[in-house]
């Protein structure tokens, strides 16, 4: 089994990193915040030209036809850039959910629009019920028990909720569930929502890895510039160790996230276990890096003018998204305590 990404996947990553470093700067993010929005149509259109919204849209519907293994590095880049666009809901969750629904009419109508950048799809899952960017969504996929409902935004009541990350604006969506909106139910619906949760949590974990990397970079750069006692503070052992510990947590989390991407793409039986492990590891690393980066920056880290808070907010908000750490820790606990749990190095890839 290959444990590395291939040249194409790495080139995809480099390409998106270069694009976002030029087009999704802190100035762009701050401008969107100042204007009370997160989604920027022009940026979304550029992302669509690159192929980002349609990553998981099948080629038959004019998408990229990629898998989660291909896309996990791209979601890392979205986190590294603190991309203020609804890529998790639209690209990572809604597109494969529309494919798996098996409703040809719905898929035919929405998948090409997602791939083309013409549609944003909000998703409300019972574990993550507040819908990101619902006010600019063209379609809402919402959960009621085991049922999947496809709801037109103008037929729902969309109520803004407090959010600490202005790049992830949250909305409560009230709607009348009925035959007209129901597109799946029962076992099929339950299975669809389970897969959607894993995909959302995986994409959030990948973004957390990217955000953590950026937090460490910001702190390391500041530690090189900030002088104290005539030396950069980065030369002091205490500061070095803080950043080294962040890096250790990040590099332990990264392969867990990549493992989860493989499990989701291949639909392995332990998919949910691997995703929960990834979400916890990535969120823990991001929370730790946020605190340490703030310490390195000192009082300056609290200021609005410093960019640090852009990524700290992302780390906090993504920890809450698609299952908080306590939810995912519970899932891991349930699985590893099962009598039939396949644990240990000799069983890691058995049966896949």
């Amino acid at each position, binding site marked *: 089994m290959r444990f590395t990404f291939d040249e194409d996947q790495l*080139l995809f990553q480099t390409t998106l990193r*270069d694009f976002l470093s030029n087009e999704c700067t802190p100035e762009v993010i701050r401008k969107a915040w100042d204007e009370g929005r997160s989604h920027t149509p022009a940026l979304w259109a550029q992302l669509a030209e690159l192929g*980002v919204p349609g990553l998981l849209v099948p080629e038959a519907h004019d998408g*990229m036809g990629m898998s989660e293994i291909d896309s996990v590095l791209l979601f890392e880049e979205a986190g590294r850039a603190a991309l203020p666009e609804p890529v998790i809901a639209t690209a990572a969750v809604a597109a494969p959910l529309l494919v798996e629904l098996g409703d040809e009419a719905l898929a035919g109508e929405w998948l090409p629009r997602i791939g083309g950048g013409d549609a944003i799809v909000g998703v409300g899952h019972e574990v993550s019920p507040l819908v990101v960017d619902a006010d600019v969504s063209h379609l809402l996929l919402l959960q009621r028990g085991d049922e999947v409902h496809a709801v037109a935004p103008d037929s729902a009541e969309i109520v803004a909720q407090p959010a600490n990350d202005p790049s992830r604006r949250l909305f409560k969506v009230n709607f009348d569930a009925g035959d007209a909106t129901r597109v799946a139910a029962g076992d099929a619906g339950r299975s669809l929502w389970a897969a959607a949760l894993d995909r959302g949590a995986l994409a959030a974990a990948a973004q957390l890895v990217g955000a953590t990397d950026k937090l460490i970079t910001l702190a390391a750069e500041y530690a090189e510039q900030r002088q104290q006692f005539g030396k950069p503070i980065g030369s002091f052992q205490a500061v070095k160790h803080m950043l080294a510990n962040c890096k250790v947590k990040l590099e332990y989390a990264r392969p867990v996230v990549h493992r989860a991407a493989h499990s989701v793409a291949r639909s392995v039986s332990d998919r949910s276990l691997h995703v929960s492990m990834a979400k916890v590891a990535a969120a823990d690393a991001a929370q730790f890096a946020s605190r340490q980066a703030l310490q390195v920056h000192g009082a300056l880290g609290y200021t609005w003018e410093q960019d640090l808070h852009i990524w700290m907010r992302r780390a906090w908000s993504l920890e809450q998204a698609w299952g908080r750490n306590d939810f995912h820790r519970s899932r891991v606990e349930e699985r590893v305590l099962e009598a039939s749990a396949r644990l240990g190095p000799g069983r890691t890839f058995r049966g896949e």
Partner: protein
Amino acid sequence: MKIMVCLKQVPHQDARLDINGDGTWIQEDNIKFEINSYDTYALEEALLIKDAGEAEVLVVSIGPDRVTQALRTALGMGADRAIHVNDPEIQGSDSLGMAKVLAAVAKEENPDLILAGLMSEDANYAAVPPMLAELVGIPHTTAAVKVERSNGTLTCDREIEGGANEVVTLEAPCLVAVQSGLNQVRYASLKGIMAAKKKPLDVKTAADLGVADQVGAGAAKVSVTQIAPPPKGDTAELVEGSPDEIAAKLVTKIKELGLL
């Protein structure tokens, strides 16, 4: 119409540069590389011509294995073919040696137009494009800030001193070395990168091109004996006052230093 675009891979603008052991170049291990930004404008200009009609865009680069990524990026942006001259014997070549390699490729391919960046961001010689044109025996211009085509004739605005432009016309085949900012460079799309896998990327050596005895450190007439970081200044002068006063003092200072 066939357009040949010369690309060079240079250290990434964000790369931390350290000098190598013998002090003759930077330490290239473990740093990121990217396409020389001047060359990206040349590539974009070629792709714009391709977009406007029938044109085949061939990208050519010289260097080690890592250069493949630059060529694949160019193919992902829309180039049709790539030639990678990958030969350790070329290492240590001066600008003339590099120009001879590119000229050998150009003579095999017979392009109607060769586009290149004005200079590379690492060495800054700006020497290869004119040398290449001379070796191929075609007219050339440099520092082009505008390129227009009409029936085999190119009209280029080239940047000259004092903020003025000089307008030159060239008959194809010819070479144009472009200034940065000529156009808005596109990004490679993910779909383009996937499609690029099916595009030809040929690898050649100096021997394949018949220039093995004309390249490398042994054939170079110019060699780098030492590079060093710029010395740190310790005579910074703080200019104080109102904005108008500061501006007046700066102008006076600049004139004193003979910079205007």
